[in-house]
C-alpha cells in the first residue's frame, strides 16, 4: 500500500519495454519513408514528445501531492518559468531573422526598447539559460515554500495561495511591459544550439533527450520515495504535528520535495518549448495547473508511474477527441473523469495493480 508495488518485476519490464518503444519512434520516423509500414508520422513523434513533457510535470506534481500531501494548484508557473527561461535563449538565437531584422526580439523592437533589459542578460548562452531553467523555478519555489511552510500554511490554504501565485504571474506576464512578449509570448523559434529547430534530426534529438530526462526523473523519484525520507514525507502528509514531536522539522522536508518538484516541472517546461514551439502566459492560468493535478489524479496519485500514465492518457484522449469529435469531446472527457473517480479510486495505476493482485 505504502510502497509502490508498481516497481515490481512486472512494472520494471513494462518500464523498460515502454522506454525502448518510445525511443524507437523517432528512429522509425527518420529511417523509414512516408508510406512504409514501419513509418511513424512526425506528427505522432512531436505529439508524444509533448506528452512526455506533461508526464514529467505530472510526476513532479505527484511528488508533492501524492507523497507529501501538498496539493499545488500552481505548478503551471514552474512549468512556464522553465519554458520561458529556455525560451529566452531560443528567442535570442533567432538573431536578425525576425520580422524587424533586429538583434532584439520583435516584441522589444515594437516596444521601442533599445537594449535587452537586465533580466535578459546572459540568456544568449545556452548554458546560462539551462541554469536559469533550474534556478528560476527552484528559487521561486524555495522562497515561496520557505515562507509558506514556515507559517505552517497547509491544505487548501496552501493550494489557494499557489493558485494566487500562478494567477498573479499570468497577469504579470500578460503585460507587454514585463518584457516577455505579453500575450503572444515567445514563438517562431529558428534554431537551437545552431541546429535548425524544425529539422527532423533536431526534433528526434529533443525527443530522445526528453525521454531520457523522463526516465531519469522517474528513477530519481523512485529512489527518494523508497528512502527513509520518502517515509518521512508520507508522515508529513498523514500527521505533520506528530512528526514534530518525534524530532523532525517538517519545514525542510517539505521544502526539499517542493523545490525538487518545481525544478523538475521547470525542466519539463524547458523541454516543452522547443518541441511545441510556443510559450505564452496562458500556461500559467489556474486552469492549466488544475489540469496537471487532473493528470496525476487520473493516473493515480501516490504512485510514480500513475501520473505518467495519467498524463499520457488524458492528453492522448484529448488530442484524439478534439480531432475526432470536436463537438462532443468534452462530454466524453468529463465522463471519463467522473468514472475514474467513482470506480478507480486509485486511478489507472490502481487498475494495473488490481490485475496484478
Amino acid at each position, binding site marked *: *500500500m*505504502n510502497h509502490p508495488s508498481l516497481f515490481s518485476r512486472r512494472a520494471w519490464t513494462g518500464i523498460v519495454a515502454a522506454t525502448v518503444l518510445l525511443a524507437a519512434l523517432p528512429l522509425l520516423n527518420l529511417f523509414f519513408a512516408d508510406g512504409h509500414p514501419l513509418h511513424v508520422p512526425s506528427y505522432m513523434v512531436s505529439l508524444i514528445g509533448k506528452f512526455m513533457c506533461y508526464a514529467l510535470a505530472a510526476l513532479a506534481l505527484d511528488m508533492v501531492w501524492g507523497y507529501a500531501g501538498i496539493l499545488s494548484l500552481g505548478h503551471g508557473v514552474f512549468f512556464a518559468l522553465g519554458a520561458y527561461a529556455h525560451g529566452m535563449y531560443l528567442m535570442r538565437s533567432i538573431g536578425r531573422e525576425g520580422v524587424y531584422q533586429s538583434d532584439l526580439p520583435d516584441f522589444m523592437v515594437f516596444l521601442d526598447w533599445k537594449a535587452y533589459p537586465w533580466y535578459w542578460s546572459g540568456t544568449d548562452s545556452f548554458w546560462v539559460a539551462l541554469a536559469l531553467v533550474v534556478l528560476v523555478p527552484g528559487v521561486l519555489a524555495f522562497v515561496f515554500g520557505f515562507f509558506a511552510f*514556515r507559517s505552517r500554511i497547509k491544505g487548501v490554504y496552501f493550494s489557494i495561495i499557489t493558485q494566487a501565485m500562478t494567477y498573479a504571474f499570468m497577469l504579470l506576464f500578460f503585460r507587454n511591459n514585463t518584457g516577455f512578449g505579453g500575450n503572444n509570448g515567445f514563438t517562431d523559434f529558428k534554431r537551437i544550439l545552431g541546429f535548425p529547430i524544425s529539422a527532423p534530426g533536431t526534433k528526434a534529438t529533443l525527443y530522445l533527450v526528453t525521454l531520457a530526462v523522463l526516465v531519469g526523473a522517474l528513477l530519481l523519484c523512485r529512489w*527518494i520515495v523508497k*528512502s*527513509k*525520507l520518502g*517515509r*518521512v514525507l*508520507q*508522515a508529513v*502528509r*498523514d*500527521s505533520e*504535528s*506528530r*512528526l*514534530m*514531536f*518525534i*524530532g*523532525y*522539522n*517538517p*519545514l*525542510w*522536508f517539505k521544502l*526539499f520535495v517542493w523545490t525538487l518538484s518545481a525544478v523538475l516541472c521547470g525542466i519539463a517546461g524547458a523541454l516543452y518549448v522547443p518541441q511545441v514551439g510556443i510559450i505564452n502566459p496562458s500556461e500559467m492560468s489556474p486552469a492549466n495547473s488544475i489540469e496537471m493535478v487532473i493528470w496525476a489524479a487520473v493516473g493515480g496519485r501516490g504512485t510514480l508511474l500513475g501520473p505518467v500514465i495519467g498524463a499520457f492518457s488524458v492528453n492522448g484522449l484529448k488530442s484524439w477527441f478534439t480531432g475526432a469529435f470536436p463537438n462532443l469531446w468534452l462530454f466524453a472527457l468529463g465522463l471519463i473523469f467522473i468514472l475514474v473517480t467513482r470506480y478507480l479510486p486509485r486511478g489507472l495505476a490502481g487498475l494495473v495493480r488490481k490485475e496484478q493482485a
Partner: protein
Amino acid sequence: MSSMNDGRIALQGLDTTHGAILYLEEISVVFDGFRALNKLSLDISVGELRCIIGPNGAGKTTMMDVITGKTRPTSGTAFFGQTMDLSRMSEHEIAHAGIGRKFQRPTVFEQHTVFENLELAMKMDKRVRPTLFARLSSEQRGKIDEILKLIRLNGSEQRLAGLLSHGQKQWLEIGMLLMQEPQLILLDEPVAGMSDAETARTAELLNELRGKHSIMVVEHDMGFVAEIAQQGVVTVLHEGSVLAQGRMDEVQADDRVIEVYLGR
C-alpha cells in the same frame, strides 16, 4: 528561525547540574479568558518518576502541551535543564533536545506499518540529507525487533498502524517513545483502555525504566499510580495549579483531594 540545530542528535550538553531536569515556574495558560493553567510551578529531578493526578480538566494535558511546545504559555517560564528555555523552542527542537511524549489519545502514523512507525521514531540525525541517505544498520534493526517484542507487536510489524486496536496503538506509541530514547518521558494516560493485565505490564515496564529516564506520568487509574509511584512524589493538579503534593498514601488521604478528585 532557529533552525541551526534542527534534527541534530540530542544535545549532549543538557545541563542538569542542579539535579532537576525540568522546571516549570508560574506557568499560566489562558484560552479566551479561561485559565487552564494558573501560575503552575513544578520541577522534576533527573531520574525521577513523577505521577500527576487531578480532576478532568485540571490542566494536566495542557501542562504537557506547554512542555512539548504545542501550546505557548501565556506567562511563566519552562526550562529543560538549566539552560534550555522551552517556551522559545519549536516542537521538533524540544523533541530533539530529549523530551518524548505519548499523547492522551493514541496518535501513530496510521498509513505506515508498525515497523516504519518505530523506524521513524528511532533516535538518529533527523535532518533532510541524513534521512535521504539513511540505511538501517543491523544494530538498529535489532533495536526495533527488541522493542517490537516488548510491545508485543512482533508478528504485526508489517500491519498498518491504523488497523490496530485502541490498546495496541497505545503500546505502539510507547514503543515509539522508547525508540526515541528521550531523557524526559511524558506519558498522558498510558493505560487508558488497557486491560488490567496490560496495565500491570505497563507498570512493570515503567518500573524498569525508572532511573534511566526522567518520567512524568498522568493517570486516573489509582491502582496503577500506586504501583509505579511507590515512595515517590505524586502531584495533584486542580484548576491549573498544584493542589497537593506528597507520597501516594498522603495524597490519597488528603481531604481536598478526596473532595475534588477521588470522591467519597
